[in-house]
């Protein structure tokens, strides 16, 4: 299989399988909380509870003295949810849909796309709530908020490439799904989600300023909380990482996609 074949496959799937992708995304959104008392309300309830915990830990116990710290957390945690859930869900995703893929003939590429689309829908449900909270507690939204219109698509591209890589590799190397949990935890604390990027200093700063996660989370904080222009360096760093990941995603798809389907 060649990279040309991979590219052709993506284009034809994007053209013909939109309705299927949509159906799968809605299904996974609905199935997540099925059978629970609060049901779909958990989409909102779960970030609210997370924010409460982190506000308590960082705001009260560790005394982060930022004004409207809970709102900063709200923004950061909800946005980070897209990235962290992609990384956590992707490695076991083809395995989890093995019957659909190896028997019903579902194209495996749909699965990583489904993960990212589900997370986007989830985010779009919570975002208006955040914006309303911001408006009520911090004041009117500024023009800088519009920057999310390029930050979000770029983030989705980054997530999709990551999901493709992890989905295929995770089906073959089962260790990845366990390993990634530790990685995501590490990323959570080394990324300015619970603190502001300026607080990182010293040697760590050197490393973290080239991290795509620091870059994108900082951009999101600039746009949707601090109300200022994003740092162009962050934009370059993140765009380059996204591009590089797509390169890797193509290679992984070319080399591993057929093997992945045979071993699940």
């Amino acid at each position, binding site marked *: *299989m060649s990279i040309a*074949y991979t590219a052709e496959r993506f284009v034809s799937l994007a053209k013909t399988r939109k309705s*299927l992708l949509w*159906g799968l995304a809605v*299904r996974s959104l609905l199935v997540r909380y099925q059978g629970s008392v609060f049901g779909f309300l958990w989409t909102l309830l779960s970030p609210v509870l997370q924010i409460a915990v982190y506000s308590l830990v960082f705001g009260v116990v560790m005394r982060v003295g930022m004004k409207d710290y809970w709102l900063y957390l709200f923004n950061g945690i909800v946005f980070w949810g897209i990235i962290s859930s992609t990384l956590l869900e992707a490695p076991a995703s083809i395995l989890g849909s093995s*019957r659909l893929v190896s028997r*019903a*003939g579902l194209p495996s590429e749909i699965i990583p796309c489904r993960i990212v689309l589900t997370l986007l829908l989830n985010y779009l449900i919570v975002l208006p709530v955040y914006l309303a909270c911001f408006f009520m507690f911090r004041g009117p939204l500024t023009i800088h908020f519009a920057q999310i219109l390029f930050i979000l698509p770029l983030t989705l591209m980054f997530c999709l490439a990551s999901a493709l890589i992890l989905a295929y590799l995770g089906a073959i190397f*089962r260790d990845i799904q366990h390993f990634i949990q530790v990685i995501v935890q590490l990323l959570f604390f080394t990324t300015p989600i619970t603190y502001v990027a300026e607080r990182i200093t010293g040697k760590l700063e050197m490393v973290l300023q080239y991290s795509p996660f620091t870059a994108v989370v900082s951009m999101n904080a600039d746009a949707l909380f601090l109300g200022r222009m994003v740092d162009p360096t962050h934009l370059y760093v993140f765009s380059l990482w996204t591009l590089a990941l797509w390169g890797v995603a193509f290679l992984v798809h070319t080399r591993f996609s057929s093997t992945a389907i*045979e071993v699940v």
Partner: protein
Amino acid sequence: MVCAASQQSNLAVRVEDISKTFYFDTNQLLSLKHHVLSLLHRMSGAGGRVLHPAGQKKDVLKAVNFDIGWGETVAILGRNGCGKSTLLRIIAGIYQPSKGLIQTHGRISPLIELGSGFHPDFTGRENAILYGKILGLTRHQIASKLDKIIAFSEVGTYIDRPVRLYSSGMISRLAFSVATEVEPDILLLDEVLSVGDISFQAKCKKRMREIQERGTTIIMVTHQVGAAQSWAKRCIYLKDGVVVADGQSKEVVNLYQKDNM
């Protein structure tokens, strides 16, 4: 490689020198250590794509060749493990061949383990819609066929209940209804013609005859000579990944029976 045949071709399926190799020892395949070793092996210039010690791979299909014309019904006959299901999955585009070329034309509806893609927590209706989409229908196309699908499946009011409450027969019936109602150009069947009770089987047979008359190409995989003979004029006998015989059902079935007595 898989590619679509050209429009003017009068073949529905062309299987050209298809070989398929599986690497058996999954523990070896799945371990990171093995792949790191392979990589080092390659980097050291020893050659070879991946290190696979002898005895860990199996050639499931060996240079298989045949053409299937439009509207033909062909039974692929063989004992368990002869490679017939793998061959069907390659035709369906689920597996990639290790070597060779496969050309198919039109919409393929694979029926491999009926209802295996159904989600237990969703209703029969929701599952039917999604299954239809997997088989390549649009939302509107499914909506227009849904009543017929439900009627044929005989699940009645259960259609709006979660599939986990269904009996295995109901699941098979619903899946069979969807897969045959999508009007595929090529229908692939893997030992699935014994669906439901006697009266439903009679309906299935009627539906199958209709599909045949409509000009749908049917490829069925089976180890039952009776099914092969009653449905297909042409049989392909597959033994250890090699086509032993390809021709009139009666002759091929005779050979198969002689071979396996």
